[in-house]
């Protein structure tokens, strides 16, 4: 009734054909060379990569204090006391620096914090 198995058969036959032609290429041809290879330029300079970044969490009056503490424990693996200290800093001072280091990791942390709906940003240090 379904036409799906027929399609799969065709796909398998095609892929087998492709594999066998690859084998032929592998055995007979020399590796292809490119005369003028295009070299992709680095999008981020070395200086930018070296600059440390920090993850900042900002206060908002809606998120519960217990919830924010739990998020800090989960995302950064901080013990409860440290997580609470940061939570209270956010609450009283409006912001707290949770982590600092390489940009990629900082971006990942900010993404996780946004997944928990906290107001978090990444900032360059200095």
């Amino acid at each position, binding site marked *: 009734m379904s036409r799906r198995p027929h399609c799969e058969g065709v796909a398998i036959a095609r892929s087998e054909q492709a594999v066998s032609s690859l084998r032929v290429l592998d055995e007979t041809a020399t590796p292809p060379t490119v005369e003028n290879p295009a070299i992709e330029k680095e999008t981020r300079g070395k200086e930018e990569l070296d600059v440390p970044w920090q993850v900042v969490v900002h206060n*908002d*009056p809606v998120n519960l204090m217990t919830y924010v503490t739990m998020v800090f424990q989960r995302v950064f693996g901080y013990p409860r006391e440290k997580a609470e200290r940061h939570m209270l800093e956010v609450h009283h001072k409006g912001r707290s620096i949770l982590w600092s280091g390489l940009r990629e990791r900082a971006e990942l942390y900010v993404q996780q914090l946004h997944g928990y709906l906290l107001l978090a940003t990444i900032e360059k240090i200095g």
Partner: protein
Amino acid sequence: MEICRHGDALEIFDLDPFLAELLRQIPASANPEGTPAAEQRLFSPPADASEKEMRAEWKLYVEPELRRLFRSATETVAADLAQLNGKEKTFANCTLRIPKEHADAWLSALNQARLAIAAKYDFTDGELGDHYRSPIGSRRDLSLFQVNFYGFLQEFILQELEVR
């Protein structure tokens, strides 16, 4: 209304029709569509305005992931809330069972709803701290009650997660 842990689930029982209706509204309240302030709060920028490139990349790659994550949580909650379906007209108190493995989805959906409602009504710190205001006065008062009721549920779920 009472809440307790029963085996591997949280049970909210003796739930009166008014509170049951507030629970039913979680998925709709969590949806920020059509409310720019709520949309802005749920999808806040990851850096200040000077980081244009980072913000553009975030919008393109991260925001769709966050939308999927939030939607998945509200869908889980909506499926649990189906237990309340068909009880709208009986006015009898009912029970809602939240499986332990859905606790994170509930925390997320409740938070989405609280943040979206608070952004929509632009509640002040003073209003958000007023846990005794009657929900009957106005639509704004009802929404404030909703935010606080959802917060109470979040607290309970967090407490239960900690005990485990």
